[in-house]
């Protein structure tokens, strides 16, 4: 094998992987939004008996018959699930769980007993992406028989069959989403409205399931029945965390899918040996999802943590300010040593405090800020006291609420209470500061 041929072999694996992941990923967006991730799982397993029957009838893994067989089962599975569900004897998840495992198990038995067909259990489960680049499509050659198989002599090699099939399926999926975008969107978001408008959400649903099944079949040889589920869900789930726009989510899921393939193949190369390439691609897809989960700029865990930390820091500062105000109110001295150094530094920077001889003084601006908080605190105390909470219960909730109450809400509470002058403990409620 020449270096050139080796390189193109590697590229083909990544291309085929990327086609699988993108084709699955863009449809997966709708599975996720319909909360039907499990349905993708179900269809990808349930198509197995369809495949076996089609292979037995046509003798090949690359035939239209397989797509027909899978398409039928792909639509049959959700119909079976729906009718089981509407019997109201079992719930949807139980219905999905029983339908697909049953069909899959039948498929497994058929594979084991089919004997002479070109399918083995390992291929069914994990796929054999590493061999797909060698099964190429030759056009214009002359066929010859060898060892019972038909080969082509001469002609032009136009690349792996898998790449062609998957490319066409990806294109079909893109066209499906493009032409039915509006219908898919409304059927997913508000099926009742879609139905009342005559946009047939059920039909759209079954069409989607049909394309999920077709895509599963196309991906089957490369990644198998189990790993394909990861390709349906992980790219869409990652994209969901990254954007608020459906169109962008679909686009990003395609990108994430392609990236999973490339990263996954690199991971497989790094691990070396007999590692499953498709498995590595699924791991990469999972890894990208984990990254999005933690680091998504809008919804990531890290950002939310940071936001909460910032809020907590604000509460701390506000509590310190209220404390200082109270100390002054009692006519006591407000000492530097009673407060954290960084709080004092920040307050001085913000022109809230001045410091002289170890003693802290609120500036006019600082007093106003503190009065705002104090007013919120004591108004809330007065308000929930009026609602019937005893005097000694009102302080703690007010300690929390003082950070949230807006000026408008304070005014509303004051009006409701007919502008009270003091809180339930008899402390004065500062009047609304001039703005």
């Amino acid at each position, binding site marked *: 094998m020449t270096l050139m041929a080796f390189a193109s072999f590697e590229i083909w694996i990544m291309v085929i992987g990327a086609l699988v992941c993108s084709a699955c990923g863009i449809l997966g967006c709708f599975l996720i*939004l319909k*909360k039907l991730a499990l349905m993708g799982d179900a269809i990808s397993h349930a198509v197995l008996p369809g495949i076996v029957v089609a292979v037995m009838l046509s003798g090949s893994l690359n035939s239209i018959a397989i797509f027909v067989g899978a398409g039928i089962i792909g639509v049959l599975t959700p119909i079976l699930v729906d009718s089981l569900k*509407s019997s*109201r004897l079992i719930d949807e998840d139980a219905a999905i769980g029983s339908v697909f495992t049953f069909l899959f198990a039948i498929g497994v038995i058929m594979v084991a007993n089919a004997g002479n067909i070109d399918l083995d259990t390992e291929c069914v489960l994990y796929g054999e992406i590493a061999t797909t680049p060698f099964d190429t499509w030759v056009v214009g050659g002359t066929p010859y028989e060898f060892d019972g198989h038909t080969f082509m002599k001469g002609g032009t090699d136009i690349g792996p069959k898998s790449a062609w099939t998957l490319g066409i399926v990806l294109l079909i999926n893109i066209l499906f989403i493009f*032409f*039915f*975008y*509006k*219908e898919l*969107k*409304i059927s*997913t*978001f*508000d099926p*009742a*409205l*879609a*139905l*009342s*408008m*005559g*946009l047939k959400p059920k039909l759209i649903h079954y069409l989607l399931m049909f394309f999920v099944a077709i895509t599963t079949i196309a991906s089957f040889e490369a990644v198998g029945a189990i790993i394909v589920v990861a390709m349906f869900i992980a790219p869409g789930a990652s994209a*969901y965390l990254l*954007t*608020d*726009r*459906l169109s*962008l*989510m679909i686009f990003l899921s395609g990108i994430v899918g392609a990236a999973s393939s490339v990263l996954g193949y690199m991971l497989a190369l790094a691990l070396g040996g007999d590692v499953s390439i498709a498995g590595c691609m699924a791991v990469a897809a999972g890894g990208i999802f984990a990254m999005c989960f933690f680091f998504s700029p809008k919804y990531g865990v890290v950002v939310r943590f940071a936001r909460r930390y910032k809020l907590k820091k604000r509460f701390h500062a506000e509590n310190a300010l209220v404390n200082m105000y109270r100390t002054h109110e009692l006519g006591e001295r407000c000492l530097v040593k009673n407060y954290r150094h960084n709080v004092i530094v920040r307050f001085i920077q913000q022109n809230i405090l001045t410091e002289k001889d170890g003693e802290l003084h609120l500036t006019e601006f600082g007093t106003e800020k503190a009065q705002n908080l104090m007013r919120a605190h004591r108004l809330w105390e007065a308000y929930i006291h009026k609602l019937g909470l005893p005097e000694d219960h009102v302080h703690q909730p007010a300690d929390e609420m003082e950070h949230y109450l807006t000026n408008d809400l304070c005014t509303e509470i004051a009006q409701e209470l007919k502008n009270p002058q003091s809180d339930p403990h008899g402390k004065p409620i500062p009047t609304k500061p001039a703005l």
Partner: protein
Amino acid sequence: MGRESKKVDEETVADVHDLTVSYHIHPVLWDVDFQVPRGKLMAIVGPNGAGKSTLIKAMLGIIPSTTGWVKIFNEPYQKVRHRIGYVPQRGSVDWDFPTTAIDVVTMGRYGKIGWFRRPGKKDREISYTYLEKVGMQDFAQRQISQLSGGQQQRVFLARALAQEADIYFMDEPFAGVDVVTEKAIVNLLFELREQSKTVIVVHHDLQTVNEYFDWILLLNMRKIAIGNVDDTFNEENLRKTYGGKLAILSKAANAMTKGRVDGIID
């Protein structure tokens, strides 16, 4: 008011004939039969589980009915879909869906646009106008989960307005909204009535019926009464609706589910 204009006023826009709706074989609405005149704001009132939402869903063909038929503008609803607007319950959709307020309003245009075609510039302009009408123009590009309950309800209302219908069905538009939103919705309802459109509203709050509506349907698994609010919304009818004298209907429904055990013929 002349005789002729009165006749136009009283024109029937929705005709529900002997409608029975069952979930599986368990009936939830029994032989409901009524007509709605044009230009009315009609409240559907009744206790929880009375079948109020079920009724409007059945009228729109969203759920199948067992017997009876519905005509809207003297036609089966399939023929007049483009003249119907629908506001489902706010809780019926996933507000985390990746879409914006203006996008949701534009969905109101989908029925008019028809299959395959996409909303054009004009549809977006119309949608924006209605978003403005409910006072939500500043939130057009907001992701819908970032809106408050009242704001979400207004977006739903704008979406129904974007359907530019002649009859509107609204499923609890006042549920869980703030005072400002409630007032805004009521004003819109009045405006629709002025344009002699008909609005049918599933409503929970008995205290506001007099103020908001001029027509009422009292419902509890069957029709109790229908008519103008002044005459129909009275103590006797309310007692019939909420008085829970439905033991026989409930038992009959249960009997249908179970089948007769002491069968007359074995």
